[in-house]
Protein backbone atom coordinates (compact mmCIF):
# COMPACT_ATOMS: atom_id res chain seq x y z
CA UNK A 1 0.00 0.00 0.00
CA UNK A 2 1.36 3.37 -0.99
CA UNK A 3 2.16 5.75 1.80
CA UNK A 4 0.87 9.22 1.10
CA UNK A 5 0.36 11.85 3.73
CA UNK A 6 -2.97 13.67 3.83
CA UNK A 7 -3.75 13.33 0.12
CA UNK A 8 -6.99 15.28 0.39
CA UNK A 9 -5.83 18.03 2.72
CA UNK A 10 -5.86 21.47 1.17
CA UNK A 11 -2.44 23.16 1.06
CA UNK A 12 -3.67 26.09 3.18
CA UNK A 13 -4.64 23.77 6.06
CA UNK A 14 -1.34 21.93 6.02
CA UNK A 15 0.59 25.21 6.00
CA UNK A 16 -1.37 26.51 8.98
CA UNK A 17 -0.74 23.32 10.89
CA UNK A 18 2.96 23.19 10.25
CA UNK A 19 3.36 26.90 11.00
CA UNK A 20 3.43 26.42 14.76
CA UNK A 21 5.73 23.42 14.43
CA UNK A 22 8.11 25.48 12.28
CA UNK A 23 8.00 28.36 14.75
CA UNK A 24 8.75 25.97 17.60
CA UNK A 25 11.71 24.52 15.70
CA UNK A 26 13.44 27.90 15.53
CA UNK A 27 16.21 28.90 17.94
CA UNK A 28 16.44 31.95 20.11
CA UNK A 29 19.47 33.44 21.78
CA UNK A 30 19.79 33.22 25.52
CA UNK A 31 23.01 34.04 27.36
CA UNK A 32 25.13 33.54 24.27
CA UNK A 33 23.73 30.13 23.40
CA UNK A 34 21.03 29.09 20.96
CA UNK A 35 18.02 27.38 22.45
CA UNK A 36 15.09 25.89 20.59
CA UNK A 37 11.73 27.37 21.41
CA UNK A 38 10.32 23.87 21.43
CA UNK A 39 12.78 22.77 24.12
CA UNK A 40 11.75 25.59 26.43
CA UNK A 41 8.05 24.95 25.81
CA UNK A 42 8.46 21.23 26.45
CA UNK A 43 10.37 21.82 29.69
CA UNK A 44 7.73 24.26 30.92
CA UNK A 45 4.88 21.92 30.04
CA UNK A 46 6.64 18.81 31.30
CA UNK A 47 8.07 20.12 34.57
CA UNK A 48 4.79 19.86 36.54
CA UNK A 49 4.95 16.09 36.08
CA UNK A 50 7.80 16.09 38.60
CA UNK A 51 5.52 17.57 41.27
CA UNK A 52 4.35 14.25 42.81
CA UNK A 53 7.92 13.05 43.36
CA UNK A 54 8.97 16.51 44.54
CA UNK A 55 6.16 16.55 47.12
CA UNK A 56 7.28 13.19 48.54
CA UNK A 57 11.01 14.00 48.49
CA UNK A 58 11.28 15.35 52.09
CA UNK A 59 9.56 12.26 53.48
CA UNK A 60 11.90 10.09 51.39
CA UNK A 61 15.06 11.81 52.62
CA UNK A 62 13.96 11.73 56.26
CA UNK A 63 12.48 8.21 55.88
CA UNK A 64 9.25 9.49 57.38
CA UNK A 65 7.10 6.35 57.55
CA UNK A 66 4.17 8.33 58.89
CA UNK A 67 4.01 10.54 55.80
CA UNK A 68 4.41 7.61 53.41
CA UNK A 69 1.75 5.62 55.20
CA UNK A 70 -0.62 8.56 55.40
CA UNK A 71 -0.45 10.21 52.02
CA UNK A 72 1.72 8.43 49.47
CA UNK A 73 -1.34 7.05 47.67
CA UNK A 74 -2.95 10.47 47.47
CA UNK A 75 0.26 12.16 46.37
CA UNK A 76 1.96 9.65 44.06
CA UNK A 77 -1.21 7.77 43.09
CA UNK A 78 -3.02 10.94 42.08
CA UNK A 79 0.14 12.14 40.34
CA UNK A 80 0.29 8.92 38.34
CA UNK A 81 -3.35 9.33 37.28
CA UNK A 82 -2.75 12.93 36.19
CA UNK A 83 0.32 11.92 34.19
CA UNK A 84 -1.64 9.11 32.52
CA UNK A 85 -4.39 11.50 31.44
CA UNK A 86 -1.85 14.01 30.13
CA UNK A 87 -0.04 11.22 28.29
CA UNK A 88 -3.33 10.15 26.71
CA UNK A 89 -4.20 13.76 25.89
CA UNK A 90 -1.30 14.20 23.47
CA UNK A 91 -2.74 12.15 20.60
CA UNK A 92 -6.19 13.84 20.53
CA UNK A 93 -4.55 17.26 20.75
CA UNK A 94 -2.27 16.37 17.84
CA UNK A 95 -5.31 15.36 15.83
CA UNK A 96 -7.26 18.49 16.75
CA UNK A 97 -4.48 21.03 16.26
CA UNK A 98 -2.41 19.33 13.59
CA UNK A 99 0.69 20.27 15.61
CA UNK A 100 3.35 17.77 16.56
CA UNK A 101 5.89 19.76 18.54
CA UNK A 102 4.45 18.56 21.87
CA UNK A 103 4.44 14.85 20.97
CA UNK A 104 7.63 14.18 23.07
CA UNK A 105 5.53 15.01 26.12
CA UNK A 106 3.64 11.75 25.62
CA UNK A 107 6.71 9.71 26.49
CA UNK A 108 7.71 12.07 29.30
CA UNK A 109 4.29 11.93 30.97
CA UNK A 110 4.26 8.17 30.52
CA UNK A 111 7.63 7.78 32.23
CA UNK A 112 6.61 10.11 35.06
CA UNK A 113 3.38 8.18 35.45
CA UNK A 114 5.40 5.00 35.84
CA UNK A 115 7.80 6.63 38.31
CA UNK A 116 4.91 7.84 40.45
CA UNK A 117 3.10 4.50 40.25
CA UNK A 118 6.26 2.54 41.17
CA UNK A 119 6.88 4.87 44.11
CA UNK A 120 3.27 4.54 45.24
CA UNK A 121 3.33 0.73 45.06
CA UNK A 122 6.69 0.36 46.83
CA UNK A 123 5.84 2.84 49.59
CA UNK A 124 2.37 1.36 50.09
CA UNK A 125 3.82 -2.14 50.22
CA UNK A 126 6.32 -1.15 52.86
CA UNK A 127 4.18 1.11 55.02
CA UNK A 128 0.51 0.10 54.72
CA UNK A 129 -1.01 -1.79 57.61
CA UNK A 130 -2.73 -4.59 55.66
CA UNK A 131 -1.78 -8.17 56.48
CA UNK A 132 0.36 -10.44 54.32
CA UNK A 133 3.70 -8.72 53.91
CA UNK A 134 4.69 -6.69 50.85
CA UNK A 135 2.79 -8.78 48.30
CA UNK A 136 -0.21 -9.06 50.59
CA UNK A 137 -0.37 -5.29 50.83
CA UNK A 138 0.07 -4.52 47.13
CA UNK A 139 -2.14 -7.34 45.84
CA UNK A 140 -4.17 -8.59 48.81
CA UNK A 141 -7.34 -6.65 48.00
CA UNK A 142 -9.04 -6.50 44.63
CA UNK A 143 -8.56 -2.76 44.21
CA UNK A 144 -4.91 -3.15 45.10
CA UNK A 145 -4.56 -6.03 42.69
CA UNK A 146 -5.72 -3.65 39.96
CA UNK A 147 -3.04 -1.17 41.00
CA UNK A 148 -0.47 -3.96 41.12
CA UNK A 149 -1.41 -5.04 37.60
CA UNK A 150 -0.99 -1.45 36.41
CA UNK A 151 2.51 -1.42 37.88
CA UNK A 152 3.35 -4.75 36.26
CA UNK A 153 2.16 -3.48 32.88
CA UNK A 154 4.15 -0.30 33.28
CA UNK A 155 7.43 -2.17 33.63
CA UNK A 156 7.68 -3.28 29.94
CA UNK A 157 6.22 0.04 28.84
CA UNK A 158 8.98 1.98 30.62
CA UNK A 159 11.76 -0.39 29.56
CA UNK A 160 10.76 0.00 25.90
CA UNK A 161 10.09 3.72 25.98
CA UNK A 162 13.26 4.59 24.09
CA UNK A 163 14.37 4.81 20.47
CA UNK A 164 16.64 1.76 20.75
CA UNK A 165 13.74 -0.45 21.86
CA UNK A 166 11.53 1.12 19.22
CA UNK A 167 14.04 0.14 16.51
CA UNK A 168 14.55 -3.35 17.90
CA UNK A 169 10.86 -4.14 18.33
CA UNK A 170 9.84 -2.65 15.02
CA UNK A 171 6.15 -3.04 14.31
CA UNK A 172 5.61 -4.81 17.64
CA UNK A 173 6.68 -1.71 19.54
CA UNK A 174 3.44 0.17 18.90
CA UNK A 175 1.38 -2.89 19.85
CA UNK A 176 3.33 -3.20 23.08
CA UNK A 177 2.89 0.49 23.86
CA UNK A 178 -0.85 0.04 23.45
CA UNK A 179 -0.72 -1.65 26.86
CA UNK A 180 -1.12 1.94 28.07
CA UNK A 181 -4.81 1.52 27.26
CA UNK A 182 -4.93 -1.50 29.57
CA UNK A 183 -3.49 0.61 32.39
CA UNK A 184 -6.16 3.23 31.63
CA UNK A 185 -8.93 0.65 32.00
CA UNK A 186 -7.36 -0.91 35.10
CA UNK A 187 -7.11 2.53 36.69
CA UNK A 188 -10.87 2.81 36.28
CA UNK A 189 -11.38 -0.53 38.06
CA UNK A 190 -8.85 0.46 40.72
CA UNK A 191 -10.75 3.66 41.49
CA UNK A 192 -14.23 2.21 41.28
CA UNK A 193 -13.32 -0.61 43.67
CA UNK A 194 -11.42 1.73 45.95
CA UNK A 195 -14.46 3.86 46.58
CA UNK A 196 -17.56 1.74 47.00
CA UNK A 197 -18.27 1.08 43.31
CA UNK A 198 -19.04 4.72 42.77
CA UNK A 199 -21.46 5.09 45.67
CA UNK A 200 -20.90 6.18 49.22
CA UNK A 201 -22.28 3.82 51.84
CA UNK A 202 -21.64 4.98 55.37
CA UNK A 203 -17.93 5.71 55.56
CA UNK A 204 -17.13 3.53 52.55
CA UNK A 205 -15.20 5.50 49.98
CA UNK A 206 -13.36 8.76 50.02
CA UNK A 207 -16.70 10.54 49.87
CA UNK A 208 -16.93 10.35 53.63
CA UNK A 209 -14.88 13.42 54.40
CA UNK A 210 -17.47 14.95 56.68
CA UNK A 211 -18.29 17.80 54.33
CA UNK A 212 -21.48 16.43 52.77
CA UNK A 213 -20.01 16.27 49.27
CA UNK A 214 -19.51 12.58 48.48
CA UNK A 215 -20.02 13.04 44.74
CA UNK A 216 -17.14 15.46 44.38
CA UNK A 217 -14.83 13.13 46.30
CA UNK A 218 -15.50 10.06 44.18
CA UNK A 219 -12.38 9.71 42.10
CA UNK A 220 -14.11 7.32 39.72
CA UNK A 221 -16.45 10.14 38.65
CA UNK A 222 -13.44 12.38 38.07
CA UNK A 223 -11.82 9.57 36.10
CA UNK A 224 -14.99 9.24 34.03
CA UNK A 225 -15.14 12.97 33.33
CA UNK A 226 -11.54 12.95 32.11
CA UNK A 227 -11.87 9.72 30.16
CA UNK A 228 -14.91 10.70 28.11
CA UNK A 229 -12.92 13.24 26.08
CA UNK A 230 -9.93 10.94 25.68
CA UNK A 231 -12.11 8.01 24.65
CA UNK A 232 -14.42 9.90 22.29
CA UNK A 233 -11.54 11.33 20.31
CA UNK A 234 -10.05 7.86 19.89
CA UNK A 235 -13.15 6.37 18.29
CA UNK A 236 -12.39 5.72 14.58
CA UNK A 237 -15.80 7.08 13.50
CA UNK A 238 -15.21 10.29 15.41
CA UNK A 239 -11.69 10.60 14.01
CA UNK A 240 -13.13 10.27 10.51
CA UNK A 241 -15.74 12.94 11.21
CA UNK A 242 -13.09 15.32 12.55
CA UNK A 243 -10.80 14.66 9.60
CA UNK A 244 -13.66 15.30 7.17
CA UNK A 245 -14.54 18.62 8.81
CA UNK A 246 -10.88 19.65 8.82
CA UNK A 247 -10.60 18.87 5.12
CA UNK A 248 -13.67 20.98 4.49
CA UNK A 249 -11.95 23.84 6.29
CA UNK A 250 -14.64 23.79 8.99
CA UNK A 251 -12.37 23.29 11.96
CA UNK A 252 -14.48 25.74 13.96
CA UNK A 253 -17.28 23.16 13.89
CA UNK A 254 -14.96 20.56 15.39
CA UNK A 255 -13.87 22.93 18.15
CA UNK A 256 -17.41 24.03 18.96
CA UNK A 257 -18.67 20.45 19.11
CA UNK A 258 -15.72 19.19 21.11
CA UNK A 259 -15.72 22.14 23.55
CA UNK A 260 -18.25 20.71 26.08
CA UNK A 261 -16.43 17.36 26.16
CA UNK A 262 -13.15 19.16 26.72
CA UNK A 263 -14.80 21.30 29.42
CA UNK A 264 -15.84 18.09 31.18
CA UNK A 265 -12.24 16.85 30.91
CA UNK A 266 -10.99 20.07 32.51
CA UNK A 267 -13.72 19.83 35.16
CA UNK A 268 -12.52 16.35 36.14
CA UNK A 269 -8.85 17.31 36.01
CA UNK A 270 -9.44 20.21 38.39
CA UNK A 271 -10.33 17.75 41.13
CA UNK A 272 -7.27 15.61 40.48
CA UNK A 273 -5.00 18.65 40.42
CA UNK A 274 -6.64 20.11 43.52
CA UNK A 275 -6.06 16.82 45.32
CA UNK A 276 -2.48 16.72 44.10
CA UNK A 277 -1.67 20.22 45.28
CA UNK A 278 -3.29 20.09 48.72
CA UNK A 279 -2.28 16.53 49.62
CA UNK A 280 1.11 17.10 48.03
CA UNK A 281 1.81 20.19 50.10
CA UNK A 282 0.75 18.31 53.24
CA UNK A 283 3.16 15.51 52.27
CA UNK A 284 5.94 18.00 51.53
CA UNK A 285 5.50 19.51 54.98
CA UNK A 286 5.47 15.96 56.38
CA UNK A 287 2.10 16.57 57.99
CA UNK A 288 0.08 14.06 55.96
CA UNK A 289 -3.62 14.64 55.68
CA UNK A 290 -5.81 11.76 56.78
CA UNK A 291 -8.75 12.86 54.63
Amino acid at each position, binding site marked *: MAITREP*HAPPKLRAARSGVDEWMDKDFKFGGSHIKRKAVALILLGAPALAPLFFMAPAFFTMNKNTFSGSVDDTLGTGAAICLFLCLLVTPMTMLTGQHWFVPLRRWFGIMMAASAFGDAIAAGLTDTFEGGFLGVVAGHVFELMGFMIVMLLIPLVITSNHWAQRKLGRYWKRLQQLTYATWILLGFHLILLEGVGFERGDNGSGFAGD*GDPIFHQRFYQYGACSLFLLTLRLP*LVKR*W*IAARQREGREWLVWV*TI*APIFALFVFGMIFFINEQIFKGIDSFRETPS*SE
Partner: protein
Amino acid sequence: MSETYATGGYPAVGQEDTTVGGAIVIAMSILSAVLVIAGLAYATGTGARHKAALAAAECEPNLSPSGLQCTTVAMLASQYTAIMTLATQQLSIDGAAYTANQKDHLTAAESALAAAVAAEHALDTKLAGFPFPPAVARTAKALIQANQALAALTAEQARSSSLTQLRSFNPRVEVASAAVQREMTLVRYALAVPPTANQEP
Protein backbone atom coordinates in the same frame (compact mmCIF):
# COMPACT_ATOMS: atom_id res chain seq x y z
CA MET B 1 -0.35 -1.62 6.96
CA SER B 2 -2.93 0.21 8.94
CA GLU B 3 -5.58 2.30 7.30
CA THR B 4 -4.67 5.23 9.48
CA TYR B 5 -1.07 5.22 8.32
CA ALA B 6 -2.04 4.81 4.70
CA THR B 7 -3.99 8.05 4.77
CA GLY B 8 -1.36 9.98 6.63
CA GLY B 9 -2.97 9.91 10.04
CA TYR B 10 -6.46 10.60 8.80
CA PRO B 11 -8.86 7.68 8.39
CA ALA B 12 -10.45 7.09 5.02
CA VAL B 13 -13.50 9.18 4.38
CA GLY B 14 -16.99 7.87 3.85
CA GLN B 15 -20.12 9.97 4.14
CA GLU B 16 -21.94 7.34 6.18
CA ASP B 17 -19.06 6.98 8.60
CA THR B 18 -18.73 10.68 9.19
CA THR B 19 -22.46 11.00 9.85
CA VAL B 20 -22.33 8.36 12.55
CA GLY B 21 -19.13 9.89 13.93
CA GLY B 22 -20.77 13.30 14.01
CA ALA B 23 -23.77 11.87 15.82
CA ILE B 24 -21.48 10.31 18.41
CA VAL B 25 -19.62 13.58 18.93
CA ILE B 26 -22.85 15.55 19.26
CA ALA B 27 -24.31 13.01 21.71
CA MET B 28 -21.15 13.08 23.82
CA SER B 29 -21.06 16.84 23.60
CA ILE B 30 -24.64 17.17 24.87
CA LEU B 31 -23.97 14.65 27.63
CA SER B 32 -20.82 16.53 28.63
CA ALA B 33 -22.60 19.88 28.60
CA VAL B 34 -25.35 18.49 30.83
CA LEU B 35 -22.76 16.99 33.20
CA VAL B 36 -20.71 20.20 33.38
CA ILE B 37 -23.81 22.34 34.03
CA ALA B 38 -25.06 19.84 36.62
CA GLY B 39 -21.63 19.78 38.24
CA LEU B 40 -21.42 23.54 38.41
CA ALA B 41 -24.95 23.77 39.79
CA TYR B 42 -24.11 21.13 42.39
CA ALA B 43 -20.93 23.02 43.27
CA THR B 44 -22.89 26.14 44.17
CA GLY B 45 -24.46 24.23 47.07
CA THR B 46 -21.14 22.98 48.46
CA GLY B 47 -20.92 25.55 51.26
CA ALA B 48 -24.42 24.87 52.55
CA ARG B 49 -23.92 21.09 52.42
CA HIS B 50 -20.59 21.45 54.18
CA LYS B 51 -22.12 23.40 57.07
CA ALA B 52 -25.07 21.05 57.37
CA ALA B 53 -22.83 17.98 57.47
CA LEU B 54 -20.54 19.54 60.05
CA ALA B 55 -23.43 20.64 62.22
CA ALA B 56 -24.95 17.14 62.06
CA ALA B 57 -21.68 15.56 63.17
CA GLU B 58 -20.77 18.26 65.72
CA CYS B 59 -17.64 18.89 63.74
CA GLU B 60 -15.22 21.73 64.00
CA PRO B 61 -14.40 22.83 60.44
CA ASN B 62 -11.26 24.84 61.13
CA LEU B 63 -8.87 22.08 61.94
CA SER B 64 -7.42 21.46 58.53
CA PRO B 65 -6.33 23.91 55.83
CA SER B 66 -8.72 22.49 53.26
CA GLY B 67 -11.61 22.38 55.73
CA LEU B 68 -12.46 18.83 54.72
CA GLN B 69 -11.30 16.97 57.77
CA CYS B 70 -13.93 16.44 60.37
CA THR B 71 -12.79 16.52 63.97
CA THR B 72 -15.48 16.39 66.61
CA VAL B 73 -15.47 18.65 69.63
CA ALA B 74 -15.19 15.58 71.82
CA MET B 75 -12.03 14.49 69.97
CA LEU B 76 -10.55 17.96 70.36
CA ALA B 77 -11.32 18.09 74.09
CA SER B 78 -9.83 14.62 74.49
CA GLN B 79 -6.58 15.66 72.77
CA TYR B 80 -6.39 18.78 74.94
CA THR B 81 -7.01 16.77 78.13
CA ALA B 82 -4.26 14.31 77.17
CA ILE B 83 -1.75 17.14 76.77
CA MET B 84 -2.79 18.75 80.02
CA THR B 85 -2.77 15.51 82.02
CA LEU B 86 0.76 14.73 80.91
CA ALA B 87 2.01 18.23 81.72
CA THR B 88 0.23 18.37 85.08
CA GLN B 89 1.66 15.01 86.13
CA GLN B 90 5.20 16.08 85.26
CA LEU B 91 4.79 19.43 87.04
CA SER B 92 3.38 17.68 90.11
CA ILE B 93 6.46 15.42 90.29
CA ASP B 94 8.80 18.42 89.89
CA GLY B 95 6.78 20.41 92.47
CA ALA B 96 7.02 17.58 95.00
CA ALA B 97 10.79 17.33 94.47
CA TYR B 98 11.14 21.08 94.96
CA THR B 99 9.02 21.08 98.13
CA ALA B 100 11.13 18.27 99.58
CA ASN B 101 14.41 20.11 98.96
CA GLN B 102 13.60 23.81 99.26
CA LYS B 103 14.65 24.08 102.94
CA ASP B 104 18.05 22.36 102.92
CA HIS B 105 19.23 21.23 99.43
CA LEU B 106 19.76 24.15 97.08
CA THR B 107 21.19 22.13 94.18
CA ALA B 108 18.46 19.49 94.29
CA ALA B 109 15.75 22.17 94.53
CA GLU B 110 17.22 24.05 91.56
CA SER B 111 17.38 20.81 89.60
CA ALA B 112 13.68 20.20 90.29
CA LEU B 113 12.91 23.75 89.16
CA ALA B 114 14.93 23.25 85.97
CA ALA B 115 12.88 20.14 85.21
CA ALA B 116 9.70 22.14 85.83
CA VAL B 117 10.90 24.85 83.44
CA ALA B 118 11.52 22.18 80.76
CA ALA B 119 8.01 20.76 81.30
CA GLU B 120 6.49 24.25 81.07
CA HIS B 121 8.35 24.95 77.82
CA ALA B 122 7.19 21.61 76.42
CA LEU B 123 3.61 22.49 77.32
CA ASP B 124 4.07 25.86 75.70
CA THR B 125 5.21 24.23 72.45
CA LYS B 126 2.28 21.79 72.43
CA LEU B 127 -0.25 24.54 73.10
CA ALA B 128 1.22 26.71 70.35
CA GLY B 129 0.78 23.86 67.87
CA PHE B 130 -2.68 22.82 69.05
CA PRO B 131 -5.46 23.50 66.51
CA PHE B 132 -7.66 25.64 68.75
CA PRO B 133 -10.82 26.71 66.93
CA PRO B 134 -11.38 30.48 66.62
CA ALA B 135 -13.98 30.48 69.41
CA VAL B 136 -11.34 29.26 71.87
CA ALA B 137 -8.34 31.05 70.42
CA ARG B 138 -8.45 34.03 72.79
CA THR B 139 -8.70 31.87 75.93
CA ALA B 140 -5.96 29.60 74.61
CA LYS B 141 -3.73 32.61 74.01
CA ALA B 142 -4.25 33.70 77.62
CA LEU B 143 -3.28 30.20 78.77
CA ILE B 144 -0.12 30.24 76.67
CA GLN B 145 0.84 33.67 78.05
CA ALA B 146 0.18 32.57 81.64
CA ASN B 147 2.28 29.45 81.11
CA GLN B 148 5.10 31.48 79.59
CA ALA B 149 5.04 33.86 82.56
CA LEU B 150 5.20 30.91 84.95
CA ALA B 151 8.11 29.38 83.01
CA ALA B 152 10.03 32.67 83.11
CA LEU B 153 9.45 33.05 86.83
CA THR B 154 10.43 29.45 87.55
CA ALA B 155 13.59 29.87 85.48
CA GLU B 156 14.48 32.98 87.47
CA GLN B 157 13.82 31.09 90.71
CA ALA B 158 16.09 28.27 89.55
CA ARG B 159 18.96 30.76 89.25
CA SER B 160 18.77 31.71 92.96
CA SER B 161 22.07 31.72 94.84
CA SER B 162 20.65 30.82 98.27
CA LEU B 163 17.79 28.87 99.80
CA THR B 164 16.32 32.07 101.26
CA GLN B 165 16.31 33.74 97.84
CA LEU B 166 14.86 30.57 96.35
CA ARG B 167 11.93 30.47 98.79
CA SER B 168 11.29 34.19 98.34
CA PHE B 169 9.87 33.35 94.89
CA ASN B 170 7.28 30.93 96.28
CA PRO B 171 4.35 33.37 96.71
CA ARG B 172 4.77 34.74 93.17
CA VAL B 173 5.15 31.25 91.69
CA GLU B 174 1.97 30.14 93.48
CA VAL B 175 0.05 33.08 92.02
CA ALA B 176 1.41 32.34 88.54
CA SER B 177 0.57 28.62 88.89
CA ALA B 178 -2.96 29.48 89.97
CA ALA B 179 -3.32 31.70 86.91
CA VAL B 180 -2.25 28.82 84.66
CA GLN B 181 -4.70 26.45 86.39
CA ARG B 182 -7.50 28.98 85.96
CA GLU B 183 -6.79 29.43 82.24
CA MET B 184 -6.54 25.66 81.76
CA THR B 185 -10.02 25.27 83.23
CA LEU B 186 -11.39 28.05 81.05
CA VAL B 187 -9.99 26.44 77.89
CA ARG B 188 -11.39 23.06 78.89
CA TYR B 189 -14.86 24.57 79.38
CA ALA B 190 -14.58 26.48 76.12
CA LEU B 191 -13.67 23.31 74.22
CA ALA B 192 -16.50 21.36 75.82
CA VAL B 193 -19.11 23.72 74.39
CA PRO B 194 -19.79 23.12 70.66
CA PRO B 195 -19.45 26.25 68.53
CA THR B 196 -22.68 27.93 67.55
CA ALA B 197 -23.68 28.20 63.89
CA ASN B 198 -22.60 31.83 63.62
CA GLN B 199 -19.15 31.01 64.94
CA GLU B 200 -18.51 28.76 61.96
CA PRO B 201 -16.92 30.38 58.95
